[in-house]
């Protein structure tokens, strides 16, 4: 290390050489080769002998330029997006006519063939072109105008092997991102690297369950404005991600933002207006249908019964008007919403300084009432060339988020939307007096037919009166210094600082629920504050050996990395706040709880990367990284991660030169090992804490609270990858395909249950088991027409992943639940089966009559007891009757019990992908893209709640087709209504549905204003875009949206539709102007 220090000191001491200059001024005009029209805004740039930018200018409205050269021996290049760059020889005094030729490859398309990047940001020193690992880079220009709000949104359905699902449709909710299948238990989260800066792990504050927070936090991390993003690169296999060592196991997303360009200042302004609306909701019973259903439920169970007054239409009851409504609760809490977005950027630069600055404001409306989110963010990217050898870069990014959600009943996982489905529709939203006049209050009785007013709250009242706000401020900034020693060696040091602070406020007023204000659950305010700071440093030595010929190319880098993460949290809860107006826990109310905590973690890493290219055809890329993490004890502190990959650019072989149709193509193969570390850096310590009361007879009491983890180590992911990149017919057809295998060993089990005879219920982490993901993926693009006025291309991608739990640790409790009650599915992990499997009963319809509900043997014959009486089917001690749900009695013992539980399906999709097309004609662009997920199952949690007919919850219209009389036998008929039925709604394949869907993800029409109009307005460019997202979905899934419900936090219970707000349909109008 000392050497590097010396080098840095030396570097400071080196004085900047000033070259003697002679004045060389050249003039010229730039025109289009085909149309002979003049081209304004082309870049004219002077390069020195080392190909470094020295000076530059931009052509004026008439295509003219003037540039003063620093050195007459330098060369000048003229470039513009959409044209091939040409080099001109400076000829003093002469007016040079430069004819630019429209280029074939457009950068707005997925960049397959990158230019050799001289200054890669990242940990490997290899150009995109020579990369032989499985990675995909996407340029985001075309996303700018679509109604996408975040990068995750933009990526969905675009890249093979990447499974992105919106966490929920609520504003600011984020996305789940899974690259190449689930390789971990609830820990999947790709590392996100923005401009070379690895982003902080989600904060682990109070009760932090990686599960619940990950998706949101990762989503929030990705919530930088799409317009700022230049490209996203996805590193998929461990050969590529191993360089990110212990954080690379789930793949890496490299995000690059725009930087300033040489030339005169350029302004971009973009305004988007979106209209968001919900897909149609599940039709629910109205008040009258509900009352009829309830009366039937009571009758079927009890025979004769006393009708509760709320469902008796009793005109004398003072609450008659409150209980005879027909309220559509779901509709009452749903609204159409609007989103406004403004984006402004300025960029440009001169010889020494280049800048890119942007500011973005989004006000996103939610489709549930009283939800919205506002985001403000700004970014400054500044490059300063201190000398031709020394470059100084500063990046600064600030963002501010405010999200208003509905109050969430965390104690029983109850949302407003869930309640809207359950709530009795005969109850009114607003209260009426005995004469039917509205009182102006929400109708929130302390007790109603359904139950107490806190459990069965008024969802409209809670949505409007409750409070659940989150404010977050994030700063990320980085300083980079790069010194070029010689042409073939440079040193870069980056220090980055990230801060995220957030504050949440919750308040539930007593008048939103039917409760006395003294109850501890209401007039309860909670405030929590979290902050998280990360400091990363990266010192990198890059080299590429200066061979005279191109036969051998050797390049590489050495990197030294440190990482420090700190955070703290405070949480205050108080209740009995004397008014509903004050929503702050700090007033003198009764403090329930105050908690705080802090944490810190540190990591060190050293990475090396060596690339060798022979004859521009044979490529070898290797990586090695050693990581140390403060969360591990000395035995396992250092982890070694490595990757090696080979490529063969066969298209350059002399014997294939004759194949005219073959463009630049290569075959790749790689192997690599990367890791995943636990989120709690203190997990390894045995800790001692206060005993239950903290004392016993005036003596302090302390107890051990955690087991020391000497065996805690990295979870290791080893991956193999074989791929091909094909360009055919002059880049008209592009194919990228990969097959891979990913093996996770030493899986990190969180909260691993151990025998409690140890004195503990669980170990915080345990490494064991083996998980395997195998699959293949392919991307295909065909550029059918490539003319300057008309262009048409289509693309398609698909991937298949199979996930198998190869090896479960010996003592692992593979059964998480054996409950088989109504709505309950036993949860199991089975060796050799994928995670995310469902188990339960097989539903066979309804017994039409009492006589059908007899036990039968394997041949369908009724079983008789010793007395010759037929044996009835039973569940626990309930005897099945006509109208009851019929489940398959697998073992023919006449009992429905755990022995009849079978595998029902799983939530892992067989196929994930997308396809799309884009078309340009003159000034019009039209593109559309589809997304699909096929071959997976969903447990329709909403149907469990809305079709069971065994409680007082509202049910969906589907229950109108139910069994009512003996002998009734209709196709698709549901079981009878029966209050508190023990077995009519057991976890069965009745609710396991195919989730397959095709979705028109995005359709976009752009009009580019013609040059004449632009000239008149004195602007460079103006576009108007109309786009729509999720316009239609083809699916057989009966729930509201098949995309909802892919929370991998509980590996035993993935893929359940929990009635989250589905992602809305969005129609966007966007105007962008550059000048």
């Amino acid at each position, binding site marked *: 290390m000392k050497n590097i220090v010396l080098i840095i000191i030396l570097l*400071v001491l080196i004085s900047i050489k000033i070259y003697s200059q002679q004045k060389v001024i050249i003039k010229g005009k730039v025109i289009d080769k085909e149309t002979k029209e003049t081209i304004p805004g082309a870049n004219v740039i002077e390069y020195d002998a080392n190909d470094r930018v020295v000076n530059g200018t931009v052509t004026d409205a008439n295509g003219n330029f003037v540039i003063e050269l620093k050195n007459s021996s330098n060369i000048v290049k003229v470039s513009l997006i959409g044209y091939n760059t040409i080099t001109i020889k400076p000829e003093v005094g002469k007016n040079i006519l430069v004819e630019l030729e429209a280029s074939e490859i457009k950068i707005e398309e997925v960049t397959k063939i990158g230019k050799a990047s001289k200054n890669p940001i990242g940990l490997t020193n290899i150009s995109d072109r020579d990369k032989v690992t499985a990675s995909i880079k996407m340029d985001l220009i075309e996303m700018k105008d679509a109604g996408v709000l975040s990068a995750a949104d933009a990526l969905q359905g675009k890249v093979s092997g990447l499974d992105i699902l919106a966490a929920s449709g609520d504003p600011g909710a984020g996305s789940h991102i899974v690259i190449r299948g689930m390789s971990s238990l609830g820990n999947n989260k790709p590392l996100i690297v923005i401009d070379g800066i690895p982003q902080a792990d989600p904060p682990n504050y109070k009760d932090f369950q990686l599960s619940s927070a990950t998706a949101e936090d990762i989503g929030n991390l990705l919530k930088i404005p799409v317009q700022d993003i230049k490209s996203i690169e996805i590193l998929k296999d461990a050969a590529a991600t191993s360089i990110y060592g212990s954080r690379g196991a789930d793949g890496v997303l490299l995000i690059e933002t725009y930087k300033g360009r040489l030339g005169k200042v350029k302004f971009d302004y973009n305004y988007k207006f979106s209209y968001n609306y919900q897909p149609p909701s599940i039709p629910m019973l109205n008040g009258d249908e509900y009352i009829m259903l309830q009366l039937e439920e009571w009758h079927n169970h009890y025979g004769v019964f006393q009708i509760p007054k709320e469902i008796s239409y009793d005109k004398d009851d003072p609450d008659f008007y409150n209980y005879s409504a027909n309220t559509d609760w779901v509709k009452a809490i749903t609204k159409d919403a609007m989103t406004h977005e403004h984006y402004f950027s300025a960029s440009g630069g001169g010889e020494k300084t280049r800048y890119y600055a942007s500011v973005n404001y989004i006000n996103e409306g939610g489709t549930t009432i009283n939800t919205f989110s506002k985001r403000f963010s700004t970014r400054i990217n500044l490059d300063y060339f201190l000398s031709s050898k020394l470059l100084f870069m500063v990046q600064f990014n600030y963002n501010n988020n405010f999200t208003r959600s509905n109050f969430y009943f965390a104690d029983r996982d109850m949302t407003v939307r869930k309640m809207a489905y359950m709530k009795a529709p005969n109850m009114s939203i607003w209260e009426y007096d005995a004469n039917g006049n509205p009182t102006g209050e929400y109708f929130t009785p302390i007790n109603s037919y359904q139950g107490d007013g806190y459990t069965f709250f008024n969802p409209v009242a809670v949505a409007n009166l409750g409070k659940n706000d989150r404010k977050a401020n994030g700063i990320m900034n980085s300083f980079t210094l790069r010194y070029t020693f010689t042409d073939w060696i440079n040193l870069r040091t980056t*220090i980055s600082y990230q801060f995220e602070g957030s504050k949440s406020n919750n308040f539930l007023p007593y008048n939103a629920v039917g409760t006395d204000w003294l109850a501890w659950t209401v007039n309860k305010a909670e405030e929590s504050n979290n902050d998280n700071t990360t400091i990363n440093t990266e010192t990198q030595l890059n080299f590429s050996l200066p061979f005279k010929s191109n036969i051998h190319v050797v390049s590489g880098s050495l990197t030294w990395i440190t990482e420090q993460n700190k955070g703290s949290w405070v949480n205050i809860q108080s209740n009995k706040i004397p008014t509903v107006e004050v929503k702050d826990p700090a007033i003198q109310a009764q403090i329930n709880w105050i908690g705080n905590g802090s944490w810190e973690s540190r990591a060190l890493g050293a990475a090396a990367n060596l690339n060798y290219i022979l004859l521009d055809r044979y490529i070898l890329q290797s990586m090695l990284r050693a990581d140390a*993490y403060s969360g591990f004890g000395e035995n396992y502190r250092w982890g070694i991660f490595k990757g090696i990959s080979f490529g063969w650019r066969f298209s350059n072989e002399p014997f294939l030169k004759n194949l005219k149709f073959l463009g630049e193509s290569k075959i790749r193969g790689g192997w690599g090992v990367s890791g995943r570390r636990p989120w709690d850096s203190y997990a390894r310590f045995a*800790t001692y804490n206060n005993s239950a009361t903290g*004392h*016993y007879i*005036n003596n*302090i009491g*302390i107890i051990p609270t955690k087991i020391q983890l000497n065996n805690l180590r990295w979870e290791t992911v080893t991956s193999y990858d074989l791929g091909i990149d094909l360009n055919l017919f002059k880049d008209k057809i592009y194919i990228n395909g990969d097959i891979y295998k990913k093996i996770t060993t030493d899986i990190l089990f969180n909260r691993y249950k151990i025998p409690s005879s140890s004195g503990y219920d669980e170990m915080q982490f345990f490494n064991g088991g083996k998980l395997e993901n195998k699959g293949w993926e392919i991307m295909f693009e065909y550029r059918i027409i490539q003319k300057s006025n008309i262009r048409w291309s289509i693309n398609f991608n698909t991937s298949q992943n199979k996930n198998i739990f190869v090896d479960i640790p010996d003592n692992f*409790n593979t059964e998480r639940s054996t409950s088989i009650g109504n709505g309950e599915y036993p949860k199991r992990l089975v060796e050799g089966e994928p995670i995310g499997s469902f188990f339960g009963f097989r539903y066979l319809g309804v017994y039409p009559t009492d006589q059908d509900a007899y036990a039968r043997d394997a041949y369908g014959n009724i079983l008789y007891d010793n007395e010759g009486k037929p044996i009835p089917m039973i569940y626990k001690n309930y005897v099945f009757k006509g109208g009851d749900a019929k489940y398959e009695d697998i073992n023919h013992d006449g009992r429905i019990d755990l022995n009849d539980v079978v595998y029902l399906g799983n939530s892992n999709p067989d196929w994930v992908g997308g396809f799309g097309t884009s078309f340009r004609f003159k000034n019009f662009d039209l593109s559309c893209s589809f997304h699909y997920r096929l071959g997976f199952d969903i447990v329709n949690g909403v149907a469990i709640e809305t079709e069971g007919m065994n409680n007082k919850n509202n049910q969906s219209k589907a229950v109108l087709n139910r069994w009512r009389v003996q002998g009734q036998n209709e196709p698709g008929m549901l079981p009878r209504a029966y209050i508190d039925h023990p077995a009519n709604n057991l976890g069965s394949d009745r609710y396991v549905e195919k989730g397959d869907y095709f979705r028109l993800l995005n359709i976009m029409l752009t009009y580019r204003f013609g040059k004449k109009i632009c000239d008149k307005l004195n602007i460079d460019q103006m576009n108007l875009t109309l786009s729509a997202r999720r316009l239609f979905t083809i699916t057989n899934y009966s729930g509201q949206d098949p995309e909802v419900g892919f929370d991998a936090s509980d590996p035993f219970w993935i893929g359940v539709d929990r009635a989250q707000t589905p992602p809305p349909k969005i129609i966007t109008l966007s105007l962008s102007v550059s000048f």
Partner: protein
Amino acid sequence: MKNFAYISIILMFIISCNDWLELEPPQGLTRNEFWQSKEDVQAAVMGAYDAFARMDGKLFKYGELRADLIKGGNNQPDNERKIAEGNIYPDNELCRWLDFYKIINYCNEVIKFGPEVRSRDKTFSDFLLRSYLAEAYFLRGLSYFYLVRIFKDVPYITEPTYSDEVDVYKPKSNGDSILLQVINDLKMVREWATIDGYKTNKENKGRATKAAIDALLADINLWLFRYEECIKYIENIEKLIKYELMPTGLWLELFYPGAAVETIFEFSYSDMLGEKNSMFGLTGRYSYQYYPSQKSLELFAIDYNSREFTRGEDGSIKKYSKTEYVIWKYIGRIDKTERSGSDQNSAPFIIYRLADIYLMKAEALSQLGRYDEALRYINIVRERAKMPVLNLPESKIVFEDAIIEERAREFAFEGKRWFDLLRMGRRDNYNRKNTLIEILVKNVPATQKRIMTIRLSNPLGWYLPIHKDEIERNPNLIQNPFYKD
């Protein structure tokens, strides 16, 4: 530029140290920070007491639910009702044994790490260390005694689970041999325990003393039907003359204020300091959880002439109306009013007291055929309660029944009844199994009587099953065959 170089140099310097990665958690103590002084050892011992004291409600339920002195109210949790009615399945929450093993682990930590502190803290005397160890062995022994009486065979663990390198997948050991080990441990440490050397009287009652260890030894030996041994340890306690029966009129002072002269070992509580017992909440008038059963009303002959004055109404039971009776031991005060304010949750949970020792001794003596001596001890307890002295024919069975009945009156609702009945049922190779079943069946609803009789006919059903989670987590555990189904 200079600043940049400066920062780089500092960073390089910091980074070169491996210490940079040694981060200790800011909250809580780590093992390296703990076990430094004698105060730490004491705190660890107190942690075990505190945890045990938090179990009073469970100890009450384990000792009473399946017996006949209490009945459940409307708020009785479903799983507890199932236990009381004999519908016991391995998913019942009361079949979890974690709380006992937590205490065992705390004690094991003290036994393993306590002695290491001697070298770090020069002021930590051998004498003091041994007295802490005696307490740890006592609490561990008491835990195992409960476990064996509740589950029969359980894993016997004597090493703390200090790291993930410890084998936690331990099989069951034979219950009787565990108890023999416990006896050996206790025999070793009884010399180390103090007689009354704690600073306060409350501690002399609430922490393990030599007499407490002797009482536990006597109890375990009685459970194992080793009568001579049992008598031996009881005589040790008698020799101390430190303990006396409470005078008749002050009998309820055992529970209010507690720490009575009669008490040998109790779990102590102080509502004011937040050390609350759970008995007030379980048996209070409006708890709707546990009330005296018909059997206990008959026992105290409430509404009859021959009723118990000392231990009956306003002693063990309070009568609010003809139909409303409440368990009074943990609720009442000697002035017949209800505990209030910071007194409410302060009643001790008594494990051993002199009357208990006397009746144990009577049981052991009668089983040895020393009826005269046995009768004397029974009558000491009866006389204190102002009950007529008994004169019993010389028969083991008659004595056994009389003692069980007397124990029910004296220790009603103290978590002893079920274990007393079990001792009777197990004695002489299940000789009186049917008597046990008769007694128990009386206290269940008519619909349950037949099922209960069948279930109880297999003595393995007298023990609780191991919770199903444990069986799933630990492949080396074998479920009690009665529950294998």
